C-alpha cells in the first residue's frame, strides 16, 4: 500500500491542501502552524475513521475559517490497484466514497468495509473514546507527533499475529506452536506444578512429597519394629547366657562353700589344740622350773656350807694377826716416848747457850755504837770552824764595787775606742786659707777676704771668684759631723760605765779588780775543804746512831734478864772473846739436836703405820664374821622348806621325772598342730570366704541380668514382634516402591516440562530472530556495525526489546530520549518492512516530528536508516518543521506554508 496523494478541505487549518506523495521518500516541511500534523491526521482519518462520525471528534475537525463540512480525499495504491477514498465528515450524513481506478465505486458503509479490507484492519464504530481507538489503527506506522520515543513493544504486540505469520514465512516456513502443542505443554506444566514449586523443589502436599513422607514413616516404623524385635532376641540370648552362667556359678559356689566348711572345721580343731598346747607347755615349764629350783637350792646350800667353812678359817687367821699387831704397837709407842724424853733435856741446854750468845751479841753491838758516835762528834766541831772563816771573806767582797775581770776589760776597750775616735776627728778638719785673691772668694755663701781661713769639716764648694770653683770633701768623703757625734757618744758611754761601777777613773777600777781577785781565791780554798765533810750529813748520822744505841740498850736489857751469870763486860775486846767461847760450846750441841729430831719423827711414823694395820685387820675380822653369819642364815633359810635333808635327793629325782613327762605331752600336742598346717588354714579360710563372696556377687549380678531379660521377654502376647517386624519391612518395601514409582513419574514430568520449555524457547527464538535481524539492519545505519537489536517471543508476546552496542546490552527503557526515538523508529521500520509483504510489498510510514530529541548528527545518520527503509520498499513520509535537517535524505519535498489567519 502506498499513498499517492491527499487533498484536505475545510479541515481545521486547511482550507484546501493537496499533497502528492512519492513512492519512497517524502519530506513534508513547513513551519509550526502550517498544518503538518493536521494533514497527517486528516489522511489517517480518511483511511480509518467512519465518515458518519459526529460529536467532539467531528467538531474538532471543523475549520474555523471556512464554513462547510470537512473533506478528505486520498488516493492510494493497494492490492495492486489504485484507489480513491473521499470522505465528507458531515456528521450522521457523512459520506464515504471508495472508487477503484477503472473499477466500481462503493459508497458509505460498503466503501468503509471495503476500505477496512484493503487496509487489513477491523472496522471501528463510533462511540465514546473513538478518537483514541482510531489513533491505534496503524499506530505502528503512524508516528504521531510527540510519540516518537514510545516503547515499540505495544505496537509489536498489537501486530503480533500478522508479525508471527510473516516471521513464519520469513523463517522458511518455521512451524508455529500449535494449539495442541500449547495444550500438551500446558498439561505437562500443570502436572509439573502439582509435583514441584516454581523453584524446582518438591511441593509440600504433593503426591511425591506424600510418598516420601510415607516412606520415611515406614522406615521409622521398620526401625522401631526391628529394634523391638532385636531387643527381644537380645533379651532371650541374655537370659540364656545369664542362666548358663548362673548354673555354673551356683555349682562353683557350692564347691567353695564345701571347702570353706572343711577349712573352718580344721580351724576349730587348731584352736582347741592351741589351748591344749599352751596348757601342756605351762605344765612342762612349771615342772621344769620346780626341778630347776630345787636343784639350784641344793647346790646353793652346798656352796654355802663350803663358804662357811672358809669364812670360819679366815676369821681365825685375822684375829691372830690382830693380836700380833697390838704388841707391835705398844713397843713402838714405848720407844717413841723414850726418845721424846731424851730430846727434851738436850734442847734445854741448847736454849740456855743460845740466850748467852744473843746477850753477848747485844753487848757487842752497844759498845760498837758508842765508839762510832764519839768519832762523829769530833768531825762536827771541825766543820763548824771552817764555816765561820768563809763568812768573813764574803762580807769583804760585798763591800767592793762589782768590778770583775770582764768589766775591767770593757772599760779598757771603751777607753781605747775613744782615743782612736778623737784622733780621727782632729785629723779630719781641713783649713782653707785665702792667701791671695783677685776676686772675692766665697766658701759656700760666706765671703772670705784674703787671709781669711775656714775649717772645712764637711763637703764644701769654694768659688774663687775668678771662675775657679772647687769642691772640697774632708776625710775622704766621711762626714766630719758624724765623726764628732761618734766621739761624743763614746765619751758618754764611758761616763755611764764609770758611774754604774762606782769608780771615778780607770786606775781606781784597776786596783779594785785586783783586790777582788785575791779575796775570791781565798774563798775558793775554804769552799774546797768544806765540800768533803758536809756538816748536815754528819749531824744526821749522829742522830741515826743515837737512835740505834737506844734500841741496842733495850735489847741488852731484855737479854740480860734471861742470863743467870752476868759478868761485867765493858770493852769490845772482852765481848768478842766471850762470844767466841760461847760459840765453841754451842756448835756441837746444835749438831746433835738435828739428829734427835729425825729419830723422833721416824718413831712417830712407825706408830701410825702399825695403828693403820691394826685397824685394817680389825675390819677384815668383822667382815669375815658378818659373811659367816649371812651364809649360815641363808643356808638355814633356804634349807628349811626342803624338809628333811635325807629325803632331798629322792625328791629331786621325782621332780626330774615329772618334767620329762610334761615335755613329752607338750611335744605331742605340737606335732598334732603341725600336722594341721595352721599357718595356711587362716589364709585358706580368708581365700575361700573371698571367693564365695565374689561368686555370690556374680550370681546376684547374673540374676539381675536374667530378671531384666525375663521382664523384657514377658510380652502381653497381643502382638507378635516378629510378625510386626515382617509387616513393617513389607510396608517399607511397598512404600519404597511406591515412592520410587511416583518419583520416577515426577522426574519424567519434570523432564518433559523442561524439554517443552526449552523447545518453546527455541521456537520463539526462531520467530524473533528475523525480526531482531531486521531491526539490527536499521540500527546499524545509525549506531554502526556493532549495533544488535534484541527481542524475544515469550508466551506469544514480543518482549525484551533492547539494543546491544559493542557487546553491552541496553534495555529499551534505559536508553536516552533521543536514542529511544531512533531505536523505536528502527523497530517500526522493521515491523513495517515485514508487514509490507501483506500489503503488496509496501506500506507508508509516517514520522511526524518524530525525532525532536535527536541531535543533528543523529538526524543526519538517521537519514541512512530512512533511506534503507525506502530501498526496502517502504514509503517513508517525514513531517518536519526543520526540512533543512533532512536535506541529505534525497526525498520528494513538499513544502507547507503557514496558514494566514
Amino acid at each position, binding site marked *: 500500500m502506498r499513498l499517492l496523494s491527499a487533498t484536505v478541505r475545510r479541515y481545521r487549518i486547511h482550507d484546501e491542501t493537496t499533497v502528492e506523495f512519492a513512492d519512497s521518500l517524502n519530506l513534508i516541511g513547513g513551519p509550526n502552524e502550517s498544518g503538518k500534523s493536521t494533514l497527517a491526521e486528516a489522511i489517517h482519518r480518511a483511511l480509518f475513521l467512519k465518515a458518519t462520525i459526529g460529536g467532539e471528534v467531528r467538531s474538532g475537525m471543523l475549520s474555523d475559517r471556512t464554513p462547510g463540512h470537512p473533506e478528505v480525499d486520498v488516493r492510494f495504491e493497494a492490492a495492486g490497484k489504485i484507489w480513491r477514498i473521499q470522505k465528507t465528515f458531515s456528521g450522521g450524513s457523512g459520506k464515504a466514497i471508495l472508487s477503484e481506478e477503472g473499477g466500481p465505486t462503493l459508497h458509505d458503509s460498503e466503501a468503509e468495509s471495503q476500505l477496512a479490507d484493503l487496509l487489513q484492519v477491523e472496522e471501528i464504530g463510533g462511540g465514546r473514546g473513538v478518537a483514541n481507538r482510531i489513533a491505534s489503527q496503524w499506530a505502528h506506522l503512524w508516528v504521531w507527533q510527540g510519540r516518537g520515543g514510545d516503547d515499540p513493544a505495544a505496537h509489536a504486540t498489537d501486530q503480533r499475529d500478522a508479525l508471527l505469520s510473516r516471521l513464519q514465512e520469513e523463517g522458511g516456513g518455521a512451524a*508455529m506452536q*500449535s494449539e*495442541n502443542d500449547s495444550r500438551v505443554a500446558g498439561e505437562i506444566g500443570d502436572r509439573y506444578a502439582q509435583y514441584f514449586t516454581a523453584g524446582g523443589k518438591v511441593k509440600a502436599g504433593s503426591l511425591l512429597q506424600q510418598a516420601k513422607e510415607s516412606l520415611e514413616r515406614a522406615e521409622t516404623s521398620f526401625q522401631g519394629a526391628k529394634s523391638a524385635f532385636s531387643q527381644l*532376641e537380645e533379651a532371650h540370648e541374655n537370659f540364656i547366657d545369664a542362666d548358663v552362667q548362673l548354673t555354673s556359678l551356683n555349682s562353683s559356689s557350692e564347691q567353695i562353700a564345701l571347702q570353706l566348711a572343711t577349712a573352718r572345721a580344721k580351724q576349730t580343731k587348731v584352736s582347741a589344740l592351741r589351748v591344749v598346747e599352751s596348757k601342756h607347755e605351762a605344765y612342762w615349764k612349771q615342772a621344769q622350773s620346780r626341778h630347776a629350783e630345787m636343784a639350784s637350792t641344793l647346790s646353793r646350800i652346798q656352796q654355802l656350807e663350803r663358804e662357811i667353812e672358809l669364812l670360819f678359817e679366815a676369821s681365825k687367821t685375822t684375829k691372830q694377826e690382830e693380836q700380833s699387831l697390838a704388841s707391835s704397837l705398844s713397843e713402838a709407842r714405848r720407844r717413841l716416848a723414850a726418845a721424846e724424853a731424851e730430846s727434851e733435856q738436850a734442847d734445854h741446854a741448847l736454849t740456855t747457850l743460845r740466850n748467852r750468845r744473843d746477850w753477848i751479841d747485844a753487848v757487842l753491838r752497844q759498845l760498837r755504837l758508842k765508839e762510832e758516835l764519839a768519832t762523829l762528834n769530833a768531825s762536827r766541831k771541825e766543820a763548824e770552824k771552817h764555816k765561820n772563816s768563809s763568812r768573813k771573806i764574803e762580807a769583804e767582797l760585798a763591800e767592793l764595787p762589782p768590778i770583775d775581770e770582764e768589766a775591767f776589760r770593757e772599760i779598757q776597750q771603751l777607753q781605747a775606742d775613744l782615743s782612736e775616735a778623737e784622733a780621727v776627728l782632729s785629723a779630719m778638719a781641713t783649713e782653707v786659707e785665702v792667701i791671695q785673691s783677685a776676686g772675692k772668694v766665697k766658701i759656700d755663701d760666706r765671703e772670705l777676704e784674703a787671709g781669711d781661713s775656714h775649717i772645712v769639716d764637711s763637703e764644701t764648694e769654694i768659688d774663687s771668684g775668678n771662675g775657679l770653683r772647687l769642691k772640697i770633701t774632708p776625710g775622704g768623703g766621711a762626714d766630719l759631723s758624724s765623726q764628732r757625734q761618734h766621739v761624743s757618744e763614746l765619751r758618754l758611754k764611758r761616763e755611764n760605765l764609770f758611774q754604774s761601777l762606782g769608780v771615778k777613773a780607770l786606775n781606781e777600777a784597776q786596783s779594785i779588780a785586783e783586790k777582788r781577785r785575791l779575796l775570791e781565791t781565798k774563798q775558793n780554798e775554804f769552799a774546797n775543804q768544806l765540800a768533803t765533810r758536809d756538816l748536815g750529813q754528819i749531824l744526821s748520822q749522829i742522830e741515826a746512831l743515837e737512835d740505834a744505841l737506844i734500841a741496842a740498850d733495850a735489847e741488852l736489857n731484855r737479854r740480860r734478864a734471861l742470863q743467870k751469870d752476868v759478868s761485867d763486860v765493858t770493852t769490845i775486846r772482852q765481848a768478842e772473846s766471850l762470844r767466841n767461847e760461847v760459840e765453841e760450846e754451842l756448835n756441837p750441841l746444835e749438831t746433835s739436836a738435828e739428829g734427835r729430831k729425825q729419830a723422833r719423827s721416824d718413831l712417830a711414823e712407825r706408830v701410825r703405820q702399825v695403828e693403820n694395820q691394826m685397824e685394817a685387820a680389825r675390819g677384815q675380822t668383822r667382815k669375815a664374821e658378818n659373811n659367816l653369819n649371812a651364809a649360815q642364815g641363808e643356808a638355814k633359810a633356804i634349807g628349811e622348806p626342803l624338809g628333811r635333808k635325807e629325803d632331798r635327793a629322792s625328791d629331786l629325782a621325782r621332780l626330774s621325772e615329772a618334767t620329762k613327762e610334761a615335755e613329752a605331752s607338750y611335744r605331742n600336742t605340737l606335732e598334732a598342730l603341725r600336722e594341721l598346717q595352721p599357718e595356711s588354714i587362716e589364709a585358706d579360710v580368708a581365700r575361700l570366704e573371698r571367693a564365695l563372696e565374689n561368686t555370690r556377687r556374680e550370681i546376684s549380678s547374673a540374676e539381675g541380668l536374667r530378671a531384666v531379660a525375663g521382664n523384657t521377654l514377658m*510380652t502381653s*502376647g497381643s502382638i507378635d514382634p516378629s510378625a510386626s517386624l515382617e509387616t*513393617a519391612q513389607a510396608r517399607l518395601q511397598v512404600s519404597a516402591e511406591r515412592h520410587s514409582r511416583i518419583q520416577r513419574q515426577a522426574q*519424567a514430568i519434570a523432564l*518433559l516440562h523442561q524439554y517443552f520449555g526449552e*523447545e518453546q524457547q527455541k521456537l520463539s527464538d526462531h520467530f524473533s530472530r528475523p525480526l531482531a535481524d531486521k531491526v539490527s539492519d536499521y540500527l546499524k545505519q545509525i549506531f554502526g556495525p556493532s549495533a544488535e537489536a534484541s527481542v524475544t517471543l515469550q508466551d506469544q508476546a514480543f518482549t525484551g526489546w533492547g539494543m546491544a552496542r559493542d557487546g553491552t546490552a541496553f534495555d529499551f527503557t534505559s536508553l536516552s530520549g533521543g536514542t529511544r526515538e531512533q531505536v523505536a523508529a528502527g523497530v517500526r521500520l522493521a515491523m513495517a518492512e515485514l508487514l509490507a509483504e501483506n500489503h503488496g510489498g509496501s506500506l507508508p510510514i509516517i514520522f511526524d516530528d518524530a525525532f525532536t530529541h535527536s541531535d543533528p548528527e543523529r538526524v543526519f545518520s538517521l537519514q541512512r536508516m530512512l533511506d534503507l527503509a525506502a530501498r526496502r520498499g517502504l514509503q517513508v513520509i517525514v513531517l518536519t518543521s526543520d526540512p533543512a535537517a533532512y536535506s541529505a535524505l534525497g526525498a520528494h519535498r513538499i513544502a507547507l506554508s503557514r496558514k494566514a489567519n
Partner: protein
Amino acid sequence: MNFIHTADWQLGKPFASVDDPDKAAKLRSERIEVIKRIGKIASELKTDFVLVAGDLFDSFTADKSTVSATCGALAEIKVPIIAIPGNHDHGGPGCLWEQDFFRSERESLASHLQVVLSPEPFNLDQATVFPCPLLRRHQSTDPTAWIRDFDFDSLTDTDKPRLVLAHGSVHGFDSSGSDEENETLGTPNLIALDRLPLNEIDYVALGDWHGTKEVSASAWYAGTPEIDRFPKGEENNPGNILHVSVERGQKPRVEVVPTTGLHWHSLEFNFVSDDDLGTLGETLSEATGDRVREDLIHLILNGSLGMNACNRLDQLLDTWESRLLRLKRKQEIRIAPTEEEIESLTQRAADPLIAQVALRLLEDSAKDGENSELTHVALRELYAALQ
C-alpha cells in the same frame, strides 16, 4: 505303626507384602485350614500320631489370636501330636511355649499336643521319640548331638521304633539359602546326620527345609504342608506331608501326601513383540485355571514392548492382580515404541513443539544411559497426553 511327619507350619506368618488385607488374611487363614486337612488325612490313614518337626509357629512370640486359632484347629487332629520348637518358634525363656496363655489354650483346646522342650527320649505307646528342640534361634552346636552319646541299651522297650525329631540344616539342604529373610552367615542348627548312630534309629523326621525332601531312606524333610513362598528351582517340592510306616530295625515306608490349599507360581515371560501380550494372558490362565483368589504368582517380565502394549500390559496385570491372591511383579521390560508410535509422536507438522520434544526423548532413550528408564516413562506420559 504309622504316623504323619510334618513341619514348618509357620502359623501366624503375616504375609505383610500382600497389600490387600483381605488377601493377606486369606493367606494366613489357609495355614490354619491345612491343619484341618492334616487332621482329616490322619484320620483317614489311621495314623498313630503326628510329628511336627519344628516351626509350628512363625515366631517365638506368636500373638494370642494365632495361638487360639492354632489350638482350635489342632482339635481337628484326633491323634497325639508331638512337636518340637524350631528356629522360628524356638523355646527358651519368654517364648510362647512358656507363656501362660499358650499353656491354658493348649490345656483347654489341644491337650493332645505335646511340645517337647528337653532333649531326652519321649515315650509314646508305639514309639520312642528322640526330640531335638531348639531353645534359641541359632544354635551353634548340633541339636542332635545328645543322641550320639545316648545309651540305647538303657531303653526298656527294645522293639519300639525309634524316631529322631529335629529341626535344622543338613549338608546340602540348608534352608537359609532359600529364606527370604536370609540373614545368617555360616550355618547354624547344623545337623550331622552321619554322626548319628543310624543303626539304633529307624527314622529321622526333619524340619526347616520347606520343600519335601528325601535326605536318605530313613531321613526326610517333610516340608511345609501349606506353601508359603514362591518356588525357587525345580527340586523344591513344598505343600506336602509325609505318611511314614516304620518298625524297629526296618526300613521305613514314606508316602508323600499333598496338602497345600493355595498355589504359588513363579513365571518368567519374555516379550519379543507386542503380540506376546496375548500369550502372557494365556500363560496366566493356564497356570491358574478357573481358580480365583487361590493363586499367587511371581511374574518376571523381560523383553521390550511398545508404549501402547505397555499400557495394555498394565491393564492386563491390573486385572490379574485383582484376580490373584498376589501378583508379584519383577518387570524389566524395555519400552520400545513401535514405528507407528514413533511416527505419531514425531511426524507432527502441525504440532512442532510436541514433535521436537518427542524427538529429543527418543534420542535420549537411544543413548541407553542411566536415565533411559526415565525417558521411557516420559515418552509414555507424552504419548498418553496425546491420546
